[in-house]
């Protein structure tokens, strides 16, 4: 079976990797790069635990081949924090206790991050629609939705503060 040499930017850093044809993006992240924040759930595109951003858009990394990200930029949950500081979205999750076992959380954060990028002020309905592909089996969705709402409000506040200076 063929292997492929790919160049991919992961969380801002450029990598040159040798990947076999049948390696998924999820396997590449977890097994080749030790980025284990991205979880392996259903391996069928149902649960969303493996959600990452490819060129800024969320995808199920279990349903994409590593060779397909050649020349593209991937962001995992490890890439959301900067300089040791959690993103406002991550802080809102901590504030609302929107985490129980935490298995779904990386995927939820990625989907919610992508939502706020394309729609900084989502309604509750829009938040629910954006998270349809991220299943949580323990803490429930209410706190997750509240956390996303809080993060959206904070970004509005910080924007208005910037606007007033």
């Amino acid at each position, binding site marked *: 079976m063929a292997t492929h040499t790919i160049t991919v930017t992961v969380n801002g850093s450029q990598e040159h990797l040798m990947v076999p044809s049948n390696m998924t993006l999820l396997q590449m992240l977890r097994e080749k790069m030790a980025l284990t924040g991205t979880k392996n759930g259903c391996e069928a595109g149902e649960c969303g635990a493996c959600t990452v951003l490819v060129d800024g858009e*969320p995808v199920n990394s279990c349903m994409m081949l590593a060779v397909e990200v050649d020349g593209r930029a991937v962001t995992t949950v490890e890439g959301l924090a900067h300089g040791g500081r959690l993103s406002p979205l991550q802080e809102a999750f901590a504030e609302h206790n929107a985490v129980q076992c935490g298995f779904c959380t990386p995927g939820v954060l990625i989907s919610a991050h992508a939502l706020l990028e394309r729609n900084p002020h989502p309604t509750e309905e829009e938040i629910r629609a954006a998270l349809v592909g991220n299943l949580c089996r323990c803490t429930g969705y209410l706190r997750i939705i509240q956390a996303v709402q809080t993060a959206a409000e904070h970004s509005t506040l910080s924007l208005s503060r910037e606007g007033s200076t």
Partner: protein
Amino acid sequence: MLSRPGLPSFDYVRVSDRNEALLLLKEHGEAARLLMGGTDLFVRMRDGLICPRTVVDVKHLPVMRSIAYDEQAGLTVGAAATMNQVACHPDVQGHYPLLAEAAESVASYQLRNRATLGGNLCNGSPAADTAPAALVLGGRIVLYGPGPSTGPSVVRREDQGQRTGSEQSGEREVPVDGFFLGPGQTAIEAGELMTAIRFPIPPADAVGRYLKLGRNKAGDLAIAGVAVYGFPDSAAASGYRFRIGLASVAPVPLRAWDAEKVLAENAPGEETFALAAQKTLEAASPIDDVRASAAYREAMVRNLTLRGLRDVWARLGV
């Protein structure tokens, strides 16, 4: 939970044009599979249902991805355009909102970033969410193949694109109505590549609605899916023409022709809609499966049709 095995071994080939894909399909036959979004392909490979030796990636080819609207020719959607690209495209939203609604009903946002319109149709699933819309919008499937075909409804045209393979490579079009032959079976012949779906200019003042019933509100496959499309037509006795497309209630997605006839011949209103919903139920031949029983599907296809007709009728602004 049982862990699934990883993907079996295969060679991945990213082709540089359509003819390279045709050559690989010819060389490897059944052992080659085309990759667009992979959302069905990889699931079937993990489940051991198929085991291709070669996976041929065609989704990056410009002809496979573009969405273009022309005031004469209508809409052409590349087979590998993703559901999100289709649902968000201004020309789709502006002229074919029913197609946008259907594309948006598929699975989840992140899956719609990968799942493609062409893949949804060419899998031949009875539950394909975009099939009812493609049926009632009069869609035509563009198939690119190696030579003159012997199949019916063939309009193979000289290919204008770059050619590196056979001199006879070209396109043919198959109406969506007639494309689905059975569960998992379509009119695509061995060695052919689906490149696009074309939609004619919609009739003036047309209104559409896709009603999908799943086990939960979003993210699931359809228990039943009903697309209703209506527009004024002075040639019809009722003054209106309605089209009804169905998914998940028969071996193939299909039109409810008898119901459409009722709606063309009788004045729109509750009585006509009830009769049309009954005729729609009679067009369905559902099965029991993990998602619902046949009896429940029959009841739901009637109710969804009624709701769709009422909604479209209200929005026709009469």
